[in-house]
């Protein structure tokens, strides 16, 4: 064995089991050409794992297999697997050989026996059908029959040698081994001789059966350490392996309505197609109403929608939502909406995921609601629920489903949700609903805590439920706070009263101004008249003065003429005629007359 190992290249060859999740955990599946041991208690899923690996090998790679059943007979095994869509009876006819290796209780035991004959038969059968896989299921049952630790050891060696000589792609041995059991010596050896050990566990948590898987040994290979949840669906077992680090979803820039216009506005135009939205809030903050509105809006757009409710019947929810103007029943009838409700206490979180997956496959929704997703934490512990919630959101994203989930958080601080399902970190949009208690009232408040990749309102808004559905009230702020309920109503009334008052004041002022304007206009008229008169007067005065200036220059000429020895009579006669003229128009003639006299 060690010599063989040295020849193995650095990368250990592996062979995929095709079991979702396990091939990721084991970085490729089981060790190729080697033996793997599946150990665990009864009903922990070992047989399903082994059988499913065989079925996948046949269906995906046409590799035939042999299943040696030490514990159950073929009929039982095929009946047990009938709930899976493997088509086992058809496979069992040619590609899958079942060996009933369960010793009948009628068989008499007399002395020691061994497996050399059986292994010879298996070798022949393997060659006949060209089997590439072999499963020894329930080897512990066989070992118990040997009733002798030495014989057990011997037969384990025999199987190991057989497996070495008869190379198969993969050999699987399953055994019920309990920790600290008395047979620990031989089982220890069993674990040593194989290259890979996978531990299976079935345990009850809060009355719900939970299945777990853990790779405890993988010779020459790396693997994901730790316990992982296992769930059983229509296609068999599935391991809740951690999601691949690389996120493959393609982001969409398309917006879809979150339910109603004002909320869309707050979200900068709506939710992104294929995004996930988380609505948190204490009971009664109308999470379901918002979810219902979202579903209704989706149906109206003609998008297939799935509404999953936990702990409340679909009928009850539809009826309750009718009271706030949300009509889901019409869409259920038309087949656009599928409502599914389930109790959460009865099945584990993993099973919910499996059911949701099959619902998604059946209904092919574009939008989906889970109300409340926090309910899955009720059955079987928080760790499982957390993993499931995360996987669910990633699943929805992979399927490009726009998903809205609600979660109840105890206490009014949205941050307490972080200790709960921890989905707020992976949700794209987080809307928190709360009650604000002020002046003796409880009012619903809506806050958008985050919305990835888009602008969103940062304001706390009041959510009002009316007969026509949820409405976000107008924002009134006072003292830095959004007013709600009566305070908002008061503020609204106050605003209205103020408006009326302002209008009255305005009208009054207008009248005043109009009067003042008329007055001014009148005064302007009067002044205008004055102005006209003054203008006229001014023009008249100007022409008279002109005449006076002209006559005065004439007089000077006359005087000069007289002074240069002209006869006085002539001067008097000349001046006399001009004086007569001047007297008729002006009273200044006297002065001129006097001057003339002086001159004479």
């Amino acid at each position, binding site marked *: 064995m060690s010599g063989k190992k040295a020849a193995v290249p650095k990368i250990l060859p592996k062979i995929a089991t095709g079991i979702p999740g396990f091939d990721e955990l084991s970085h490729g599946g089981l060790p190729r050409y080697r033996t793997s041991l599946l150990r665990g208690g009864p009903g922990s899923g070992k047989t399903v794992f082994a059988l499913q690996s065989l079925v996948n090998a046949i269906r995906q790679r046409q590799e035939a297999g042999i299943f040696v059943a030490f514990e159950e007979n073929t009929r039982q095994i095929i009946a047990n697997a009938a709930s899976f869509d493997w088509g086992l009876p058809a496979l069992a006819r040619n590609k899958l050989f079942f060996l009933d*290796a369960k*010793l009948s209780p009628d068989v*008499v035991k*007399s*002395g020691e*026996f061994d497996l050399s*004959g059986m292994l010879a*038969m298996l070798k*022949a059968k393997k060659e006949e059908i060209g089997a590439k896989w072999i499963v020894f299921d329930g080897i512990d049952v066989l070992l118990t029959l040997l009733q002798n630790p030495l014989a057990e050891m011997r037969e384990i060696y025999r199987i190991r040698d057989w497996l070495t000589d008869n190379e198969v792609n993969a050999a699987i041995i399953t055994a019920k081994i309990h920790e600290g059991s008395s047979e620990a010596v031989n089982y220890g050896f069993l674990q040593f001789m194989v290259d890979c050990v996978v531990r299976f566990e079935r345990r009850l948590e809060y009355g719900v059966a939970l299945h777990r898987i853990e790779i405890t040994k993988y010779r020459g290979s790396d693997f994901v350490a730790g316990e992982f949840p296992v769930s059983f669906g229509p296609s068999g077992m599935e391991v809740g392996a951690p999601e691949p680090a690389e996120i493959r979803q393609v982001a969409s820039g398309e917006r879809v309505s979150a339910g109603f216009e004002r909320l869309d506005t707050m979200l900068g135009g709506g939710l992104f197609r294929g995004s996930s939205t988380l609505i948190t809030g204490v009971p009664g903050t109308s999470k379901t109403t918002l979810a219902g509105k979202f579903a209704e809006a989706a149906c109206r757009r003609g998008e297939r929608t799935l509404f999953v409710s936990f702990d409340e019947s679909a009928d009850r929810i539809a009826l309750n939502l009718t009271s706030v103007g949300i009509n889901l029943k019409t869409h259920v009838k038309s087949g656009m909406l599928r409502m599914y409700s389930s109790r959460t206490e009865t099945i584990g979180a993993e099973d919910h995921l499996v059911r949701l997956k099959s619902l998604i496959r059946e209904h092919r929704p574009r939008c989906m609601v889970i109300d409340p997703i926090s309910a899955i934490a009720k059955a079987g512990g928080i760790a499982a629920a957390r993993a499931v919630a995360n996987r669910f959101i990633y699943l929805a994203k992979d399927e490009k489903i726009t998903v809205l989930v609600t979660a109840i958080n105890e206490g009014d601080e949205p941050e307490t949700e972080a200790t709960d399902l921890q989905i707020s970190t992976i949700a794209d949009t987080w809307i928190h609903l709360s009650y604000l208690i002020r002046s003796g009232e409880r009012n619903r408040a809506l806050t958008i805590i985050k919305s990835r990749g888009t602008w969103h309102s940062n304001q706390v808004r009041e959510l009002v439920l009316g007969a026509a559905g949820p409405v976000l009230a107008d924002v009134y702020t006072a003292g830095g706070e959004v007013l709600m309920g009566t305070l908002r109503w008061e503020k609204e009334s106050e605003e209205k009263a103020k408006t009326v008052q302002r209008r009255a004041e305005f009208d009054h002022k207008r009248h005043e101004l109009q009067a003042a304007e008329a007055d001014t206009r009148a005064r302007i008229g009067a002044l205008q008249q004055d102005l006209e008169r003054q203008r006229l007067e001014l023009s008249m005065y100007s022409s008279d003065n002109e005449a006076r200036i002209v006559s005065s220059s004439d007089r000077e000429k006359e005087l000069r003429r007289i002074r240069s020895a002209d006869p006085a009579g002539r001067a008097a006669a000349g001046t006399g005629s001009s004086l007569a003229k001047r007297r008729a128009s002006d009273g200044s003639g006297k002065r001129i007359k006097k001057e003339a006299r002086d001159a004479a």
Partner: protein
Amino acid sequence: MPRKKTKREASGRAVATIVVMRLYIANDAPNSVRAVANLEAICKEHLKDKFKLEIIDVLETPLRALADGILVTPSLTKVSPSPAAKIVGNLSDKRSVLHALGIVEPVE
């Protein structure tokens, strides 16, 4: 004495008819070798010549053994008379073999 014994055997129906048996062995595997020896001793002592034994080496005809519903070796099957019986092991526990074959062991 031999007469008396015959009577008792007759009442046990053991030698009234021939016992047909098949022994499946794995060649010379220790348990198989031991089983052949043990069975021969039992037959010699209790069945005289009133038996028919077929020894089948599973290593040589594995598919036949498979068809016969054999699992482990050595395995002994009583084909007739009915009821059929199946015994596994190296037949070292003589009592259980006789009981399974329907041979009543003499008292003492």
